[in-house]
């Protein structure tokens, strides 16, 4: 893998992805995490523009699962934006781009539209390089790094000694067929004909079969949906209801009551969505915050109150107990 500048590890979180997308200049979409593959969950998220299936393989390198798909990769075709994965940490952003750049109904913004045009004729490996060399994409991606002065130079602490493998695969319909876009594959995989209504169900089947194939408990899965911006969606729906209310005849009280109820429900959903967005923004602010001065000052205050020394002793005891328990568990396993 080549190193085109530094790409930091970012958290796989709908709030991070949503702000990342709008940071690239894209308008009118957001990301939602999907907790269950049942139909009613999918129904609530409609319209879904694309799905991102991601998993983290925790294990020694060399024993990673063979990435076999349910179909055969096609040679990259002109009408599909398909990029090979060049940099490990960029893969989330790359999966998001796979959806954004393959839909004609998303407002990309000037810079990303230029990028799409510029790279249109590139082969998959060059597209991957172009992503990793794009100042816009890299700087937005890296803005979600924690700003601790040291964090970018080291690995994620949760990764431990064996480097975890993150893998992201995008699913979306392109010109009447469901496609699986996996940066580690040779090309886009056509999973068969679909309609705008049937593709989500078909994609879920493909995801389920992948999950079954891996099966191992060491795999952590998650699924994200790229959807229309829900704040805009609810606002549009409220305007529609308002229009209907205006055109109602005076005596249509029953109908008026029904529409009023609809309007209240939409208002409630809109409010919840706004609160969620504010929460996401706050979480992102905290993610980007450098906490070292805060931590140092808390510790210094404890030292001034003569509480730090005994705390060091307690923490040492805890660490020793933890190590002993770990050793015991390890011995039991063998």
């Amino acid at each position, binding site marked *: 893998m080549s190193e085109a500048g530094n790409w930091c590890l970012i958290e796989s979180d709908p709030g991070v992805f949503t702000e990342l997308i709008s940071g690239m200049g894209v308008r009118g979409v957001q990301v939602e995490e999907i907790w269950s593959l049942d139909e009613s969950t999918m129904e609530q998220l409609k319209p879904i523009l694309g799905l991102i299936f991601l998993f983290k393989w925790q294990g020694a390198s060399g024993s990673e699962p063979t990435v076999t798909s349910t179909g055969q990769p096609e040679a990259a075709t002109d009408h599909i934006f398909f990029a090979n994965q060049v940099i490990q940490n960029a893969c989330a952003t790359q999966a998001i781009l796979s959806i954004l750049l393959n839909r004609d109904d998303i407002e990309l913004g000037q810079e990303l539209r230029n990028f799409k045009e510029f790279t249109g004729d590139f082969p998959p490996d060059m597209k991957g390089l172009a992503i990793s060399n794009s100042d816009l994409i890299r700087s937005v991606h890296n803005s979600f790094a924690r700003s*601790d002065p040291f964090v970018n130079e080291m690995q994620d602490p949760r990764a431990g000694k064996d480097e975890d493998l993150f893998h992201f695969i995008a699913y979306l319909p392109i010109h009447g067929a469901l496609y699986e876009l996996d940066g580690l594959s040779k090309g886009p995989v056509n999973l068969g004909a679909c309609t705008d209504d049937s593709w989500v169900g078909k994609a879920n089947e493909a995801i389920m079969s992948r999950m079954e194939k891996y099966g191992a408990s060491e795999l952590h899965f998650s699924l994200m949906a790229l959807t229309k911006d829900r704040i805009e969606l609810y606002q549009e729906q409220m305007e529609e209801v308002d229009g209907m209310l205006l055109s109602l005849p005076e005596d249509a009280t029953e109908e008026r009551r029904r529409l009023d109820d609809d309007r209240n429900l939409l208002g409630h959903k809109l409010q919840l969505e706004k609160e969620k967005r504010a929460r996401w923004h706050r*979480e992102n602010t905290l993610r980007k915050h450098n*906490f070292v001065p805060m931590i140092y000052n808390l510790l210094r205050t404890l030292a001034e109150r003569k509480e730090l020394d005994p705390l060091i002793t307690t923490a*040492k005891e805890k660490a020793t107990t933890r190590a002993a328990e770990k050793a015991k568990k390890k011995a039991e396993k063998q």
Partner: protein
Amino acid sequence: PDNQQSPLSLTDVLTTQTLTPLLNDREICSALFPFLPEESERSPEEVRQVVQSPQFQQALATLSFALESGELGPLLTQLGLDPSAGTSVESFLRAIEQQARRREQERNNDAMDED
């Protein structure tokens, strides 16, 4: 590495139990305002919420890991600590402890000078 001393974690030092009395102290909270994110409101309640956030926990874990990796020399100098404090979580905590004792002594000396 089994016989090696098991490393401390800052999450075992700055526990909820340790932090609660500090965060209930208005004066201590006010002294922490400069270290809040820029867009945060300057209030004791905000300090409490920020310190209790999962992101703060994550920062504790990250800093612990970085200290154990022993590559934090320049950062420690910025905090007025000796670069040698950056070899483990324990040496970092001991350095803060010594710094506090040294400052206390300096204050006492100053007070005696004034007498």
